C-alpha cells in the first residue's frame, strides 16, 4: 500500500490571510519552523475583501470599548512597523442632518475614554479640505484613521517568514485530521494540482482559516460556534476624498469611504449568511450603499463605480444573533483543550487592524506548548520592504514607469500602468518559490485588471507577454483569460450602469463577439446535420 508523501514541521498554519501570514512571520521571528497551507491564494478571503481601513478605534468607542482600545494601540504599532503598507491619511467622522444628536454629543467623551485623539473640526473648514462632504454635514471630528494595503501586508509578512525558513503551500486544502488520543498526529492536505494527498506532521496546528475556521475545526472534530456576516463594498472610478470618511453614528450600513490609491472604497453592508458558497455582491446591496453613503457624500449618487466585492466576516459565538454588527468584532482564540485536543489552536474573528495582535496571541499559546520562550518581536521589528511584492500599490506602476522603465519595457495594463517588467518580477518571485504563475496570481499581486477596463484589454496583453516569456504553454492562455475575467465579472455585475455599463459591453464585444470565448468547447454543430445530409 502506498503511503502518501509526508512532510514534518513544528507548526502548521491553516489559512494564508492576514492572520495566518502574520502568524508565520511571528513564529519565524521566534525561530519556530512553520508551514502555511492556503486553499486558494494569499488574502483570498475576508483579508482581501475589506475596506483596507486601519481603524483608529473611533468606530467602536460607544459599543465595544475594549475593541476600540485594541484598534488604537495596534494602529499605532502598525504605523511604526509596516509603514510601507500604510497611508496615514487621517480620518473624519461626519454627522449629517437627522443623525442622532446624542451620539454626536457623546462621541468626544467616548473617544477620550478609549484614549483616541478626536478633534472637533469646524464643518466649513472640513468641507474646504474635503469638498465631497455634504453641505448638510452638522458635525465633524478628526481621528487618526489610516488606509492599509492588506495584500502588501500579507505578501511581505509571508516573504519575511519565508526568508527565515517558513513555507507557503498555495491552493492546498485540508482534507482530514488524523487523531491519536489528545493529539492530532497528522493533517492530510491536497493541492489543487496534485491528485495525491500529503500528510503533514506538526507539533502544533493553528486554524487561522478566517470564515472557514468553522469547517476546519469541524474536520478536526473540535467544533466552534461561528456566524457569518457578509459585507459588500463598492469601488469608485476616481478618488473622492483624501481622508477616511466615517459616518458619525452607531455603526450601520455604508458608513465608511476609504481612499484606496486612485479610487475610493465605500461600504459596507452586513447580512447574515449561512454558507460560504456563492458570496457575491448584489444589485440591492449596491443600491443600498449608494443611497445611504450619498447622504454623507452626495457625489456618490452620480459617481461611476467600477467594481463591487463581498467578503464574509467570521463572527465568533452568538449563533442566532440577527445583526452581525451586534456581535463582537473582537477576535477569539480557542485552545480546544476542553475538547480533548492539546495541539490545535483556532484564531479567528477580529479585524484587519488587529491581525498582528491576533497572531501574537496565537503564537504565544503555541510557543508555550512547544516550550519556546522567545518573546514576540512583531510589535517592534519593522516589516522589511520586499521589492517583488510592492506592485499592489496603486502609485508604484506609474511612478516607476515615469522614472526608470528600461528601453525594452512595455506597458501591459494602460489603466494602472503595469509594465512587462513588473509582471516579470512577480513571475520570477512566484517561480523562485516553486509556483507556476497564473494570470489570477499576477492580478492579486499587481494592479492588472483593477482599472476601468477591469481586465478586458490588459488580460489579453499580459497573456501574450506570458506566452512570449515561455510562462504559458499549450491552450492555457484562453482559460486563464476566462478565469480572470470571470473573477473580475463577479465584482462588476452589481454596479453596471452609466459609463461602466458601456465598458462592460465593450468587454463582451471583444471577448465574446471577436474572440468567441463563450463558445469554447461548444459542439460544432453543422447546420446541415439537422436537415437532409
Amino acid at each position, binding site marked *: 500500500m502506498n503511503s502518501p508523501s509526508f512532510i514534518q514541521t513544528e507548526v502548521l498554519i491553516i489559512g494564508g490571510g492576514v492572520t495566518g501570514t502574520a502568524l508565520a512571520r511571528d513564529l519565524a521571528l521566534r525561530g519556530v519552523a512553520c508551514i502555511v497551507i492556503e486553499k486558494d491564494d494569499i488574502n483570498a478571503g475576508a483579508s482581501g475583501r475589506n475596506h483596507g481601513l486601519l481603524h483608529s478605534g473611533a468606530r467602536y468607542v460607544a459599543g465595544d470599548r475594549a475593541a476600540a482600545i485594541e484598534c488604537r494601540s495596534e494602529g499605532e504599532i502598525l504605523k511604526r512597523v509596516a509603514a510601507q503598507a500604510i497611508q496615514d491619511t487621517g480620518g473624519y467622522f461626519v454627522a449629517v442632518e437627522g443623525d442622532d444628536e446624542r451620539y454626536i454629543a457623546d462621541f468626544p467623551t467616548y473617544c477620550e475614554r478609549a484614549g483616541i485623539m478626536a478633534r472637533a473640526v469646524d464643518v466649513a473648514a472640513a468641507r474646504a479640505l474635503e469638498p465631497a462632504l455634504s453641505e448638510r454635514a452638522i458635525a465633524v471630528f478628526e481621528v487618526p484613521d489610516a488606509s492599509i494595503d492588506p495584500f502588501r501586508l500579507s505578501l511581505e509578512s509571508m516573504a519575511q517568514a519565508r526568508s527565515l525558513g517558513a513555507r507557503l503551500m498555495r491552493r492546498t486544502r485540508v482534507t482530514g485530521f488524523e487523531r491519536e488520543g489528545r493529539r492530532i498526529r497528522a493533517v492530510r492536505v491536497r493541492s489543487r494540482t496534485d491528485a495525491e494527498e500529503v500528510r503533514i506532521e506538526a507539533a502544533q496546528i493553528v486554524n487561522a482559516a478566517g470564515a472557514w475556521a468553522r469547517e476546519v475545526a469541524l474536520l478536526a472534530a473540535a467544533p466552534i460556534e461561528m456566524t457569518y456576516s457578509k459585507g459588500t463594498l463598492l469601488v469608485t472610478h476616481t478618488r473622492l476624498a483624501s481622508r477616511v470618511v466615517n459616518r458619525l453614528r452607531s455603526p450601520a450600513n455604508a458608513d465608511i469611504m476609504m481612499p484606496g490609491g486612485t479610487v475610493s472604497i465605500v461600504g459596507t453592508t452586513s447580512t447574515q449568511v449561512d454558507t460560504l458558497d456563492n458570496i457575491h455582491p448584489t444589485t440591492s446591496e449596491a443600491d443600498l450603499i449608494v443611497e445611504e453613503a450619498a447622504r454623507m457624500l452626495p457625489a456618490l449618487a452620480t459617481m461611476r463605480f467600477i467594481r463591487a466585492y463581498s467578503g464574509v466576516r467570521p463572527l465568533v459565538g452568538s449563533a442566532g444573533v440577527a445583526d452581525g454588527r451586534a456581535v463582537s468584532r473582537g477576535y477569539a482564540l480557542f485552545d480546544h483543550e476542553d475538547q480533548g485536543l492539546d495541539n490545535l489552536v483556532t484564531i479567528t474573528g477580529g479585524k484587519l487592524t488587529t491581525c498582528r495582535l491576533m497572531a501574537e496571541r496565537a503564537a504565544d499559546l503555541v510557543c508555550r506548548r512547544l516550550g519556546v520562550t522567545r518573546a514576540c518581536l512583531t510589535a517592534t521589528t519593522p516589516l522589511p520592504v520586499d521589492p517583488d511584492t510592492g506592485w499592489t500599490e496603486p502609485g508604484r506602476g506609474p511612478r516607476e514607469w515615469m522614472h526608470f522603465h528600461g528601453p525594452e519595457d512595455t506597458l501591459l495594463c494602460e489603466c494602472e500602468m503595469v509594465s512587462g517588467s513588473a509582471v516579470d518580477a512577480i513571475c520570477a518571485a512566484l517561480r523562485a518559490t516553486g509556483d507556476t504563475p497564473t494570470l489570477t496570481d499576477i492580478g492579486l499581486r499587481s494592479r492588472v485588471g483593477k482599472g476601468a477596463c477591469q481586465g478586458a484589454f490588459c488580460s489579453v496583453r499580459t*497573456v501574450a507577454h506570458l506566452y512570449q516569456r515561455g510562462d504559458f504553454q*499549450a491552450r492555457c492562455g484562453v482559460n486563464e483569460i*476566462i478565469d480572470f475575467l470571470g473573477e473580475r465579472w463577479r465584482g462588476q455585475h452589481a454596479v453596471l450602469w452609466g459609463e461602466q455599463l458601456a465598458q462592460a*459591453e465593450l468587454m463582451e464585444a*471583444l471577448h465574446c463577439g471577436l474572440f*468567441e470565448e*463563450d463558445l469554447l468547447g*461548444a459542439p*460544432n454543430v453543422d447546420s446541415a446535420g439537422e436537415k437532409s445530409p
Partner: protein
Amino acid sequence: MTRAKQDSCDVAIIGAGMAGMAAALFAAERGLSCILVGNGGSLLFASGLLDLLGVHPVAERRRWRLPYDALVALAREEPLHPLARINAVSIRSAFQSFVAALGAAGLRYAPLGERNRNVLTSIGTIKATHGVPISMIAGADLLDALDARPSCLLVDFRGLREFSAAQIAATLGDRWPRLRHQRIEFPGYEAAAELYAAHLARALETGKTRERTIALVKPLLGDARAVGLPAVLGLARAGEVHAAFEAGLGVPVFEIPTMPTSVPGLRLLAALEAAVSARGVRRRHHATVRALAFDGEGGTATLALDGAAGGVRARAVVLATGRFTGRGLTADRRQIRESILGIPVHQPGSREFWHQRDFLDASGHAINRAGLLVDEAWRPLDAGGEPFWPRLYAVGSILAHQDWMREKCGSGLAISTAWAAMQHVARQLRGTAAG
C-alpha cells in the same frame, strides 16, 4: 434662432457606426438625399469581419456553418428577432451591396457564398464569420483544410503587445501540429519598445519597409505553405501591400485580426467614409444631436446639433445610435433610456435581471436583449405601441430582441436592418411630395 444655416435632406441618419453608414449607403443608392450625423467612432472597435449569424439559439451555443439555414431556424424560433423579420433575399442583397461598396472604395472582401468561414483570432481561438477581407481569406482556407495538416508559419513583431504568434501556435498546437511561429524586429522600429498596429500598417505602405520586412520573413519560410501575420498589412493601400507580400514570399499570406483599435477596423471605417462620400452623403462629423423636434404628422424633423454649425431638417430620420458603447442607450441604476428622444426601451424588470453572475453564462445577459421595439416598417414605438413619429426609424444594435455579441450577428444586424428600413423610408417618401 437662425434658420439660415439649416440644411435640408430627405433622410437624416443619426449615428455613423456600421448601421448608420450602411443606412447612408443604401439611402444614397435609392436616390435619397442624406445627411449622416456622427463621427464613426464605434467603427474603431470593428474587427473588419462581417458576421451575419453564427449562433442560434444562444443558450445552446449552437454554431451554424450555413448562416442562411440559421436564419430560417431563427425566424421559426425567435420571430421577434430583428433578423427574423427580414427575408433572405433582402439580406443577401444588403450584404452584396455593402461589400460591393467597400470593394469600390478599395477594401476587398472574399466572395460571400453560402457559408460562414473560420478565421484565427489573435488569442488563438477560431471565430466564424461571413464576410472575410481578402487579406484574411488564406487563413480561412487553411482552417478548412486542417485535416491535411498544412505547414504554416506565423510571424509577429517584437513590441506589438497584444499579438503573440507563439500564443496562437501553442493554443492551436494540438489541432495544427505544423503551425510554426517566429518573432522578428519590425524594420525601422528596432529601437521602439512598443509598436502600434496602425503605425506599422502605414510604414508597410512604403516600398522600402515592405521589402525589408519580406526579406526578413522569407528565410524563415521553410516548408510553410502559407504565412500568417498580425493585421498590419497597410491601411489605404492594403490591397497593394498584401499582394506585394504574397508575390515576395511566393505563398499565400493572411492577416490575423487583432484587438481593437485594429487596422482592419480602421480600413473599414476609411472605406465606409469614402463610400458614403462618393455617393454624395453629406456629413456632420463630431456632431451630436441635442434636440430632435417634429412638426406635425406629415411635416419634417428638425435636428439641433452640438459641435457643428447649423441644424438639419429632414423628411425622415433614422436612429442608428447603437447601444451603451455607442451612446444610443443610457442607463442609470433604475432603468435604461433611449438617449435622444426618450423612446420607451423594452427592458428587464429591474437591474437585478440585467446581468448574469457569470460573465460567460450560456444564456447570455438579459440586458443585451433590451432595446427599441419597432413596427413592421422599423419605426420605434411609443408607450402606446404606436409609431413614435410617422417617419422615424431605428436600425442596428439599438433594436430589442437580439444579442449580437452572443449570436455573432453584429454586422448582419446593422446591414440588414439598414437595408430593410431604407426600403420603407424610400417607399414612404415617394408616397409624399418632396419637401
